[in-house]
């Protein structure tokens, strides 16, 4: 389109476009983000976000779930301990035996070589 317009009006049109575009780069990035994630809340630093940060390291079960599961198990035959440490997902309530054991580092740091 622009290339078709004659000399004088083209200059005016470009100027107008430039004025519209002079929003901070930060705001432009915000527009981009909201376009990709329309459900994004207005407040990024809100309590949900901070609380998630505070919960780093939280694993999938708590003692309440564990005890409930244990109570249910009493009526059923106790399952033998799994020989393979398979990924715990879905409705399965993990027990301490199921958790992959975090191995302590026995390897020396490569900086010390």
């Amino acid at each position, binding site marked *: 389109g622009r290339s078709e317009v004659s000399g004088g009006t083209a200059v005016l049109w470009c100027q107008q476009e430039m004025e519209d575009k002079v929003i901070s780069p930060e705001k432009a990035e915000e527009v981009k*983000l909201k376009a990709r994630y329309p459900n994004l809340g207005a407040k990024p*630093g809100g309590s949900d976000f*901070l609380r998630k940060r505070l919960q780093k390291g939280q694993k999938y079960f708590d*003692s309440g779930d564990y005890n409930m599961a244990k109570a249910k198990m009493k009526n059923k035959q106790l399952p033998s301990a799994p020989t393979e440490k398979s990924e715990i997902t879905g409705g399965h309530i993990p027990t301490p035996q199921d*958790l992959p054991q975090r191995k302590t580092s026995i390897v020396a740091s490569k*900086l010390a070589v």
Partner: protein
Amino acid sequence: MAGPGGGSSDVQWCFSQVKGAMDDDVAEADIISTVEFNHSGELLATGDKGGRVVIFQQEPESKNQPQCRGEYNVYSTFQSHEPEFDYLKSLEIEEKINKIRWLPQKNAAQFLLSTNDKTIKLWKISERDKRPEGYNLKEEDGRYRDPNTVTTLRVPVFRPMDLMVEASPRRVFANAHTYHINSISVNSDHETYLSADDLRINLWHLEITDRSFNIVDIKPANMEELTEVITAAEFHPYQCNTFVYSSSKGTIRLCDMRASALCDTHAKMFEEPEDPNNRSFFSEIISSISDVKFSHSGRYMMTRDYLSVKIWDLNMETRPVETYQVHEYLRSKLCSLYENDCIFDKFECCWNGNDSVVMTGSYNNFFRMFDRGYRHDVTFEASRENSKPRSVLKPRKVSTGGKRKKDEISVDSLDFNKKILHTAWHPLDNIIAVATTNNLYIFQDKVN
């Protein structure tokens, strides 16, 4: 120290050493998480994600090569923290070393504090270079002799042996933090230290492990009302009653422990006013302070937020006295940096020995120095390509405009996985330690 003019303008930085594996396949445990010189600069400690500490010691200057300052070689290495699982809270506790802080040296041994998310430990590093020989009741290999075979008595003597450096945990300061520890700081009284987590700061005595005093608590009664967290804290270098803590909202509070036992009310609050017209979704996130460091003089403090380094005069709370842009070109990339979580990266910063230059890291293994006096800044890269011994580092430049000059790198070519979060400056000399993901680079100024 720097030449008569001071600062980086007359300093030529040269590659000195690089530690760590060369291969690109980085094990998570090898990710360096903290770097710290001791008070004399003779020792350099690193901590990693695998909970290990490696300490390097500077070799004394050799007569053969007076142009070189001593190299740093491995002095001691030990496993400081191990992974734990808190069954009560169902919480996995990482062994990653968040911070190391050295105690000032009081006797032959060296002491440092190392911390992971939950537990702080005091380590003693001592040398053994003699051993007793000539026992009457023991053989040299330790077996006990039959007393009936002893016919003469001798006095055991100490004989030299190969140097052995031993690290032993002397104190374990545990169970005082519900949230994740981000900072520790030794007080100038050399008796106490503080530890800070997301919501609380505790004061400890180095000799007492079963008790600590809570001095700051910003946990709201209702967690739904949580709006900010503590991101870093540090004691003043010589006023033992003063400390500061920074927040995720870009504020710094200075507290005076003489005022009250609980320092929830600050003595001073440092905050730069924000232009409401410029406010965006990202404003709060990029204003979050990732590091705060007092100057050696104790007159200033430096803060690092996502895009800049700010110097504050402790006498002026209204705004910083100096602001340095680390990588302003990232402002137009915030959307993707939010998506790949890089916007949450916590960069640290440090002062040189005479407070004339400050340094911080960036992406693409770049690190930046800002000379406060000359108003001159420079960007260097820590890479194996520039690692010929004593080769002078060439300044790097990121091209921001349309036209990219030769030797410049465009913003889109930057590697955001190569981040320099941790840097340290020798307290007296122009020697710096720069940590890439799994390598430690040591650079020195050219000694003529």
